[in-house]
């Protein structure tokens, strides 16, 4: 099971949007497709969904090239909203259910259940364009989930959402992943989705720059920072660790970059020997920092938020 992206490339005229992207998406795990604006995320998702054809490479599902029939069992939520403005909310969800192969009865009953689950139970017969932006967003989610998809693909689902909506969408996605769904979503807001993704694929300028489990990547990045507030007259205790560098120093906060090979606890012991440690903590790098390191970009104005 699961999705495999194999060496996918696509260009728009002279502009190369994807240049041999390759990664796997495991079922039951929420995977984030991350990268700055213009990295090629949407193009890749459109290729996966068959909206675009790749110039090279292929998308595999269940170990074979993905076909029309497979995609009918998937759910897709595009970046820009795609709903019929004049259609009642419930009919809209049921219609997309039927397009995905449900019978009319199943589509209607599942649409009812889903709208209730998403807090839109009382909006069944309301015209879509009369719903608030947040409600339309949830309705869009409902249209992509109505047929209980085995694969859910969402393009920038968190863009423009308030914190409450972000939390509720995250919860829905966790729930689906918990039942064995393959969940893949894209985002350029790396730190917003840091806690949601279990696996990540980072793309930049059409190439995969980093992939793997978030926990492992962060722990093994070698870009750990020890934050320590120690009541010592100077930093002489650091002299025993020449590889450790000071990242920043403020009134009561010293940030140290801890390269691989140095045990953070030994560093802490040295600090305790020098004076009373008031506060300390080991910070793993954020996804943005990981991205910047992996993409070898430091200060790109179009860069990462």
């Amino acid at each position: 099971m699961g999705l495999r992206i194999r060496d996918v490339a696509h260009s728009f005229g002279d502009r190369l949007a994807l240049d041999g992207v390759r990664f796997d998406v495991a079922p039951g795990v929420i995977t984030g497709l991350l990268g700055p604006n213009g990295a090629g995320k949407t193009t890749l998702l459109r290729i996966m969904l068959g909206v675009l054809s790749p110039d090279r490479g292929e998308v595999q599902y269940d170990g074979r090239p993905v076909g029309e029939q497979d995609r009918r069992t998937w759910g897709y939520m595009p970046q820009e909203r795609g709903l019929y403005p004049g259609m009642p909310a419930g009919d809209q969800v049921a219609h997309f259910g039927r397009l995905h192969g449900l019978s009319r009865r199943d589509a209607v009953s599942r649409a009812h259940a889903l709208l209730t689950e998403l807090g839109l139970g009382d909006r069944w017969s309301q015209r879509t364009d009369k719903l608030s932006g947040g409600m339309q967003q949830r309705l869009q989610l409902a249209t992509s989930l109505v047929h209980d998809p085995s694969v859910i693909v969402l393009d920038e689902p968190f863009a423009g959402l308030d914190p409450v909506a972000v939390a509720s969408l995250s919860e829905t996605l966790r729930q689906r992943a918990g039942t064995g769904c393959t969940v893949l979503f894209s985002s350029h807001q790396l730190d917003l989705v840091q806690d949601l993704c279990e696996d990540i694929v980072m793309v930049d300028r059409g190439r995969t720059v980093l992939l793997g489990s978030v926990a492992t990547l962060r722990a093994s990045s070698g870009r750990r920072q020890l934050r320590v507030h120690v009541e010592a007259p100077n930093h002489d205790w650091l002299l025993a660790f020449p590889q450790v560098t000071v990242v920043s120093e403020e009134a009561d906060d010293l940030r140290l970059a801890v390269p691989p090979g140095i045990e953070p606890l030994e560093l802490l012991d040295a600090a305790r020997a020098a004076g009373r440690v008031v506060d300390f903590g080991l910070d793993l790098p954020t996804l943005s920092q990981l991205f910047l390191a992996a993409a070898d970009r430091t200060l790109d104005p179009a860069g990462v938020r």
Partner: protein
Amino acid sequence: MGTWWRGTALVAERGLVENVRSRSFKVLTGLLLLLSIAAVTVPQLISGDKTTYTLATTGKAPVGIVAALDAAGKSADFTVRYISRADGNAVRLAVRDGDATSGLAAGTLYTKARETGTFPVLVAQAVVALETSRQLSEAGLSPAQVTELQSIQPPRQVSVGQVDDEGRAGAGFAVGIVLYLALTFAGSAIATTVATEKSTRISEVLLAVLRPSQMIVGTVLAFGTITLIQLLVLATPLTVAVRVTDKIGLPAVAAGDIGLAVAWFVLGFALYAFLFAAAAALVDKITEVSSAILPVTMILVVGYMLAVTIVMSDPSGGWSVAASIFPLTAPMAMPIRWASGQVPVWQLILAMTLTAATAMLLVAVASSIYRRALVITGHRVRLREVMRDRTAS
């Protein structure tokens, strides 16, 4: 193929339901119904009074004359009133004062000055016929022989023009007019739907489960059905009126001509509907629809004008033949030409095949534009751009 139709039917059903529910559909259809009822009933109300002629005679009108005039009245839809006057002068005065249409006294037929109606002629004919049969009987002919002589008819009169049969020409004309009007309404509705799907990015969700051809054919089917419903609404009062009363004279048209008219309507509708859909797929914002479909509307108008002017003036001229076979003008030109009865069957079949093939080709072109134009946003897509992409990839 089964799944293709299932998806297409779902698209069509959605479009149909949404439109039938919409206020504009209800208003337009209601308006059409009222219009149609009015078209049938108003002329009836206006011409409700039957024409009545009055004949003044000295004494009681002769039985033979009355019988002849009443019989003529029955077939030509008028009634005759008879008034009697004392003498010839009174009869003359009655006609002069307008009390009677004509007057008959002692072998003189009085009519008003400048009277051009048929009634005096009918009266005169009745008098002559009556006198003739009286003289024939006196000459010894049997009543059967007299009747036989009277049943001699003048030769049948046939007007000679470009068109063999007025009724058939009417059917040919009707296809053009109905097609033109139907496409003016449905064409912009189809374009709006396609452009809505594209500008709101519904198309992106749909393309993950449907092929562009399903979306386009489904949308055209939905509006074709709506147009058909509206045409039926328009035709129903007329049909009912024809069935219930026999007062409305519809040209007698052969069932084959009606079948051909319907076939041309369907072909022409499909052809232009796909053209409208293709034009709308180029649109980025919904407000650009009207300018995007302008070229299609222009082609439709020019096609219609060509069909009417060229073909009506000379149905078998070279230009007419060309116009009736060229797919964009054929649905409007060929029915009119066909009605003239001078078209070889192979030309009809060629025109129909070409039109159907062009319609199918347009589905492919519109689908291609739809898919390619989807990924180009932010500006109106130029046709050249879509075609260039096609060759590039």
